[in-house]
């Protein structure tokens, strides 16, 4: 306790350090100003699905009304796309208003049953598909031969609906390249059973005795960052974390390297004979001050800039209150833990310049590189997986969907690790550095 109080006095009595922490907080709070220059674009907001998430909603649909119960069965005899898209889709769909349920054959992921844009369930890799609506429940089944059926999923969907065949084909993603794609599917003639009202098939289709041939492009599923490039993610509003990190690294390093430079370390260690406790007290004070300042800044910055950005008419990707809280607290934690990493490296190296350079190279540089849009995604992923920059995952509020290929790069706001796993990587580096620093401090003559 005495050591904590002493280290706090040391910290607050050097005006440059206090100013550094305040400056880091102001950078978090005010840095988004630099992004306001462009002003609001004229891009329309994306379509949102029943859950409020942005969605893609374009596909080819040959359909007829279905008011009550009914069953439709079809075989997809051929599905191909110009770019060999693994998520080219052809199958059956029941759509009621903004909701839908669909079972489909895909280019490379077997049979899937999907509904309401966000939800996806995998089935076997076969060609026969069947949708049955009975009493408000839509059941999707798949079969290899049209006689023995396996249930893939069941979805509640009642009310007047349109049902029929659909084809969609999302853009093909190769690395960071996005190529438009078009799929062509050949269906057998659909077999209808149940109470179908008398009507013709509506939609664009080439019909023959053998069946229907359809082409389709676009997708129906959740929209990702590359589909809504002008959309704002909450992580974007915390971009000030990056310059703040540099300032905090300098403060954290100087807190210990100046002790070596001026010889104050001898006083510190002759006043506190428990050397590791002196180090821990110093780390606790630095982490505490950084966390408090950064949390205040991020908790103010997120709601403030959300208001500003929405006021300007920009689209904001939805994020729940818990995700916002996690991004705010996580940002403060990233800064505080990086500060301790800087302190530890400073103690190990004992020289301000080399220590600052080292910590910037291991924390700030990988993050900066990961944000470079032209870097191959694999490199960017690696940078944010194994380096301390992984911790920026705490700022991710966008959802990554396994059933959608996209440019899931840090530059787009997607990190390879889960938020707390990313933070754990940074914690690991910091723990190792702190342990090495403690051992050296105990052993070294000063």
């Amino acid at each position, binding site marked *: 306790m*005495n*050591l904590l*109080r*002493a*280290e706090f*006095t*040391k910290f607050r*009595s*050097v*005006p*440059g350090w206090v100013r550094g922490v305040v400056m880091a907080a102001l950078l978090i709070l005010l840095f988004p100003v630099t992004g306001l220059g462009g002003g609001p674009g004229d891009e329309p907001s994306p379509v949102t699905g029943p859950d409020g998430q942005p969605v893609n909603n374009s596909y080819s649909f040959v359909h007829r009304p279905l008011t009550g119960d009914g069953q439709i069965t079809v075989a997809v005899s051929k599905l191909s796309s110009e770019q060999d898209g693994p998520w080219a889709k052809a199958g059956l769909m029941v759509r009621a208003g903004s909701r839908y349920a669909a079972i489909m054959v895909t280019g490379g992921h077997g049979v899937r049953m999907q509904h309401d844009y966000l939800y996806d369930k995998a089935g076997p890799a076969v060609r026969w598909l069947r949708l049955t609506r009975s009493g408000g429940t839509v059941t999707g089944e798949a079969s290899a031969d049209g006689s023995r059926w396996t249930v893939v999923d069941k979805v509640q969907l009642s009310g007047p609906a349109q049902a029929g065949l659909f084809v969609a084909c999302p853009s093909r993603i190769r690395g960071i390249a996005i190529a438009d794609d078009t799929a062509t599917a050949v269906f057998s003639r659909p077999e209808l059973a149940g109470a179908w009202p008398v009507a013709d098939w509506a939609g664009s289709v080439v019909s023959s005795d053998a069946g229907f041939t359809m082409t389709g492009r676009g997708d129906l599923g959740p929209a990702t960052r590359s589909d809504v490039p002008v959309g704002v993610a909450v992580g974007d509003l915390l971009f000030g974390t990056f310059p703040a990190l540099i300032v905090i690294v300098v403060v954290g390093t100087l807190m210990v390297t*100046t*002790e070596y430079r*001026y*010889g*104050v370390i*001898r*006083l510190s*260690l*002759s*006043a*506190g*004979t428990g050397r590791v406790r002196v180090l821990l007290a110093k780390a606790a004070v630095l982490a505490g001050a950084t966390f408090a300042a950064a949390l205040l800044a991020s908790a103010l910055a997120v709601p403030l800039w959300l208001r500003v950005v929405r006021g300007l008419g920009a689209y904001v990707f939805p994020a729940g209150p818990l995700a916002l809280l996690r991004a705010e607290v996580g940002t403060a934690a990233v800064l505080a833990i990086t500060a301790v990493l800087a302190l530890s490296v400073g103690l190990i190296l004992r020289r301000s310049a080399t220590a600052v350079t080292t910590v910037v190279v291991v924390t700030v540089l990988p993050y900066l590189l990961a944000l470079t849009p032209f870097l191959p995604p694999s490199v960017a992923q690696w940078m944010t997986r194994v380096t301390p920059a992984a911790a920026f995952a705490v700022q991710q509020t966008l959802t990554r969907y396994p059933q959608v290929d996209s440019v899931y790069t840090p530059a787009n706001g997607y990190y390879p690790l889960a938020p707390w796993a990313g933070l754990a990587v940074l914690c690991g580096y910091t723990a190792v550095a702190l342990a090495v620093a403690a051992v050296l401090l105990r052993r070294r*003559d*000063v």
Partner: protein
Amino acid sequence: MTSIEVAELRKRYGGTTALDGMTFTARPGRVTGFVGPNGAGKSTTMRIILGLQTADAGHALVCGQPYRSLRCPLRSLGSLLDASALHPARSGRNHLLWLAQTQGLGTRRVDEVIEQVGLASVSRRTAGGYSLGMRQRLGIAAALLGDPPTIMLDEPFNGMDPEGIVWLRGFLRSLAEQGRAVLVSSHLMSELQDMAEHVVVVGRGRVIADSNVAELIAAVSGDRVRMRTSAPEAVAAALTAAGGQVVEADGLVVRRLAAEQIVAVLTANGLPFSELAPHRATLEEAYLDLTGDAVEYRGAPA
């Protein structure tokens, strides 16, 4: 009980021997001078006493314990190793405050020691602007914080103006009179004159002399008598005949004869003389005499 006990300390840095069996003690109630040329191992010894460096062999105890086992070390031993060990942007008062807080002491004690060393008017200024003399005073204030029974200062006179030197001598003497053990290192014996009661003279990492100041001076002074005369040749001849040894140096210096014998011889021969007095060596002379071959770095004669 001895306040600082150093026994058989050995320390090597690479190929250089810094300490070679350093052994001495500093006792309560007196100022112990710790003297030796630069590089003799004074600072290394002090760092080992403070547990900042580890000795290759031997031990150092403060109040009977290794320093690093003391819970509130500044309450047992106050020290000043390097007066410039300050963060220049921190005020002198805050510098003392954080040190005080490590020992569970508060602002009241800080203000007391600031008053004691006469820094009250500048204590809230940043230490970067302090003169070396002011820094020495701040360092002494830091050493006094825990009101310790033992005080150890490394070259505290460096950079002090004459007035400061006089003040510090008196101050350290009064600390010793209060019953504290005071260990003061210096590379200049003259700084310790009239203050240190005991000196430990070191050279090349070991103790050359460990003695009471009065005895040390007497030993170096020997039985020499200094006198003046208007007939140096005759006097020299007469005294040599009586068994003395005469050297001419600003008058004559006579050895091996007591003052009374000289007076008797000269009176019997009717020779003139004046200002006859026992020669008293300065501490400086004693020191030079002792460390003559222990000086590590010596300039070539011009």
